[in-house]
């Protein structure tokens, strides 16, 4: 088969760019550990409480160490269960100090949902039978919309909560209050 000289140059250049590009992706994934969310742990969607993390009292934000937090969430149409506050009201807003490491663990009791803290890298599919899990560092302060980005039924667009990343000082102030 005949390749035109310019086409050879074009394809060699394109092929080399491709190899370089894939090498960068591979380096990121396997050396730096930036794989997309691929957690493999399974769970019974009709009995998520069997896993301690998803019992009512353990839902929402929990501080586990200095600058280390866990957020456990049970998703269902059309609601993220982030636990209850001290007054027994459902939590719809969580505050996380800037710079802390946060492990998000999410399961669904019914259909497939999305779990996206819009504008951040927290973006996972949540599927019945699996625990979706992702650890991130939140370095930008501000108010972020936590929303379902996989169609889950008639109220899909009403499935949301708010995540606020706050400066360390202001969070200490809040704690002091």
């Amino acid at each position, binding site marked *: 088969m005949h390749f035109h000289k310019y086409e050879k140059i074009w394809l060699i250049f394109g092929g080399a760019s491709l190899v370089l590009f894939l090498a960068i992706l591979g380096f990121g994934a396997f050396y730096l550990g930036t794989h997309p969310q691929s957690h493999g742990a399974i769970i019974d969607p009709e009995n998520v409480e069997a896993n301690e993390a998803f019992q009512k009292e353990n839902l929402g934000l929990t501080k586990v160490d200095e600058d280390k937090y866990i957020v456990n969430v049970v998703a269902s149409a059309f609601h993220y269960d982030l636990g209850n506050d001290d007054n027994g009201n459902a939590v719809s807003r969580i505050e996380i100090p800037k710079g802390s490491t946060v492990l998000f663990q999410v399961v669904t009791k*019914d259909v497939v949902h999305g779990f996206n803290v819009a504008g951040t890298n927290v973006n996972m599919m949540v599927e019945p039978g699996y625990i979706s899990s992702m650890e991130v560092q939140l370095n930008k302060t501000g108010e972020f*919309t936590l929303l379902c980005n996989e169609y889950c039924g008639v109220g899909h667009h009403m499935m949301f909560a708010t995540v606020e990343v706050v400066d360390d000082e202001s969070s200490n102030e809040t704690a002091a209050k």
Partner: protein
Amino acid sequence: MSLAMKQQQNEEINLTPLSISKPEAKLYLSFMYVAFISLFIGGLMGLLQVLVRSGDFELPLGIGYYQILTLHGVILALVLTTFFIIGFQFSLLGKTVGMSGRQRKLGWVSFWTMTIGTAFTGTAILLGKANVLYTFYAPLKAHPIFYIGLALVVVGSWIAAFVNWHQVYIWKKAHPNQKTPLLAFMVTINMIMWVICSIGVAVAVLVQFIPWSLGYAETIHVLLSRTLFWYFGHPLVYFWLLPAYMAWYAIIPKIIGGKIFSDSLARLSFILFLFFSIPVGFHHQLTEPGIDPTWKFIQVVLTFMVVIPSLMTAFSMFAMFEITGRKNGATGLLDWFKKLPWKDVRFVAPFVGMLAFIPGGAGGLINASHQLNTVIHNTIWVTGHFHLTIATTVILTFFGISYWLIPHLTGRKLTPKIHKLGIYQTVIWAVGMLIMSGAMHIQGLLGGPRRSSFSDYGGTEQAAEWVGYQVAQAVGGTLLFIGIVFMIYIFVELCFFAPKGEEEFPIAEEEKDAIPTPLWMENWKLWIGITIALILFAYTVPMIDIIQNAPPGSPPFDSIL
């Protein structure tokens, strides 16, 4: 290559294309009628969606947003595309290798099977019993008739595939030692890819969804059904794209007064698309739990292999443009570009489609980039992406084909007036899409979700910022709907009212002294063997993993739709 063979090939180049008989034309046109009716219905649904999402409009009569979204996806992504492609491919084979009476009858069986399937699925959606979107992700459950209809559409398309292969086989037997005409070769490849990939969705629908929706199976394995869907879902987009490439490689050269750049490179790129379209479905599932990330990465690498035939195609197109321009007297570095027929809508519409494929392809690279996918997954960026690729590149090429194919089949002429409307149509489409798709891309990067009705998300600042982009999408979407009205008018004119006459079916030829295409390129067993080997390599281990480590299955959910 021996002299005798070279002579034979040259002889074949001079074969005049066959003519399409009236009964054949009727069959091909029937597919086109369904395609253009679908375009109108689907486009209208799109208009309603962008209006709802602007926040200033509510759907009347209790119609649900997700109902019209389902209709939009099913009727455009599955019905319009499949009907247009099968009708177009039938006409290509009728023109290049011929169609017997029996094959035509089977063609009608294919048409009616697909049409009845479409009616079933459409009825379920219109009754509000199937608000599951065109991806019908379990465990959302639609009425069984929705799945049965989809299965019929797929089965109908398989009948078309077998007729196509039979047409090429008969021609081949009558013309031993000659290469299959380029367009017939391309149709054969596209239908091989289609049948191999749609087996995945057929298994999901027949084995998983139908028994489960009828209540014979209590639960469904969600991840398995999604994996089978995406095994089909990515080659689906190449099934849309390859017919556009057929026009680019083998029809546009004729329209602009040139020759095919390289017959063998065109075939090679199609073979590479066959190899690398299917073993890649995980790149739609990158953020899903339960799939090993190493296998995700392997499929990402396989996905990126299509870069090579894509670069080959880009080179071929512009080389062909330049050679043709220079033949027409162009001098200097870029003068040839001006020599292209900028007033010929049969060229301009697909050319705008080609341009859209530059940002479209670049966006695709981002989407498939393993970890980078997390940034845009399920944001409206993705919607913006495929409105460039399918809804601009592919559709504008299909429109470009319609301007000559419809009058050729109806025995009418593309009049200067309709021609001019076509140019306006292309401009409206390009501007509308630039606004709509551009706004979708930006809103997606800011985190705005796809597949969502209007919402203020509890009044966050972010969500307030998104509304502005949604208004822009409404403006772009309205322009696009005007473009659809233009196109429907043009279609009706070309079908029923344009003056009688003869419109050319342009099929490009090779240069007289072109280097002959090697005959090993038609080693179908080898190409299919490699395709299947790649699929087995990419899917066997992760599939076993998904099945062996299955969680408890899911019961159906339909009360939340």
